[in-house]
């Protein structure tokens, strides 16, 4: 038996996760961001999310059917109407469009509304890939959606905080409330991601006795990267953020640098998660 790798899919899948991350990060830090910044971040992120979904469908259809380019329209129709992947794509796209509509209609940005619209995107991601056979109603899929949401929320909030400090959105005032909220939110996300990740590992077939194939190598890489990011996050929470709040310019520069490194690590972890979703575990 051989397996066909859907290698071209992980990049748009990872990009969708990153767009979701930026949105979740914006929502998480919204109350402490300067006026206008939330809208200017969320609007393009939602537009990019919808565009990425639009690109994802033909790529996924080509990957599933292996048809030449000329037959792609028929393959897209087949995948959309007759496969689980197609149904989950529709759920995710509906979430992205609902978020866009909510953003356009609501005069003052309604964070809970947009967060609710992103729930279908997270659920659709969770129900695609290795948990596909369980269906949307499975508690495992909801837990996996929580895992994805926590990972994306962590990466997104670090991204937004780094942008805010890097671009000096707060002029000369140090955004103590924002960095404090970042610290608390990341800690919560890390706890949720770690606990749900343990359940994911537990569900791997023959986890303890499985071989060390490509899936296990990618997984090990993701775990190492996530552990390094968690270490940086912990350093920021207990050392970097309090020191920066006391007004040390060197500490503030160091915090910006560690946030940049943490963001790079989390972006790599998101891409690795997308690769894992399209790779079979060793049996």
């Amino acid at each position, binding site marked *: 038996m051989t397996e066909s790798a*859907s290698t071209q899919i992980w990049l748009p899948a990872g990009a969708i996760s990153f767009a979701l991350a930026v949105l979740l990060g914006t929502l998480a830090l919204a109350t402490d961001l300067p006026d206008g910044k939330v809208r200017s971040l969320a609007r393009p992120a939602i537009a990019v999310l919808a565009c990425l979904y639009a690109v994802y469908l033909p790529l*996924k259809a080509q*990957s*599933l059917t292996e048809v030449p380019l000329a037959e792609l329209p028929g393959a897209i129709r087949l995948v959309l109407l007759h496969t689980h992947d197609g149904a989950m794509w529709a759920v995710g796209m509906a979430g992205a469009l609902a978020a866009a509509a909510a953003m356009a209609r609501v005069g003052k940005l309604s964070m809970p509304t947009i967060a609710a619209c992103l729930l279908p995107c997270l659920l659709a991601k969770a129900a695609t890939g*290795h948990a596909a*056979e369980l269906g949307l109603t499975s*508690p495992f899929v909801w837990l996996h959606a929580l895992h994805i949401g926590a990972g994306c929320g962590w990466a997104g909030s670090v991204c937004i905080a780094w942008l805010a400090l890097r671009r000096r959105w707060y002029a000369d005032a140090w955004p103590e409330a924002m960095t404090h909220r970042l610290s608390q939110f990341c800690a919560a996300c890390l706890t949720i991601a770690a606990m749900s990740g343990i359940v994911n590992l537990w*569900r791997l077939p023959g986890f303890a006795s499985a071989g060390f194939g490509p899936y296990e190598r990618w997984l090990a890489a993701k775990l190492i990267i996530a552990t390094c990011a968690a270490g940086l996050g912990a350093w920021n929470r207990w050392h970097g953020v309090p020191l920066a709040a006391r007004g040390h310019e060197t500490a503030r520069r160091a915090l910006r640098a560690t946030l940049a490194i943490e963001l790079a690590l989390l972006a790599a972890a998101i891409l690795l998660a997308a690769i894992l979703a399209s790779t079979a575990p060793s049996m």
Partner: protein
Amino acid sequence: MTVLRSMRALRAFVCAAALLQAGGAWAHAHLQKQAPAANSLQEAPEQIRLEFSEPLEGALSRIEVVNASGAVISAARTSLDPASPKVLLLPLTALPAGSYTVNWNVVSVDGHRTRGSYRFTVK
């Protein structure tokens, strides 16, 4: 108090994890049973029946039967067994004596393609 709360949270997590553990395996279709059996010598079968480890996408999964000279002899459509989304069926017309190869190419619901082949002989 905090320790008690943590213990409660841990207990709830373990219970939830135990509940979820019964939910199913990680998808990716592996062939588990086949009829006719691989490398068997038998009467002409009425159908090919392949059972996989995971549910399949019926619209994207195929079985093909090829005779010894390499010609495809299966004209019927492959379909999922209505009783189980893990079972793929291909009806056959009466096969003459000879050696045959079954090529299968399936997509599991997690969107991953697996393929393989095996042989049987009709006496």
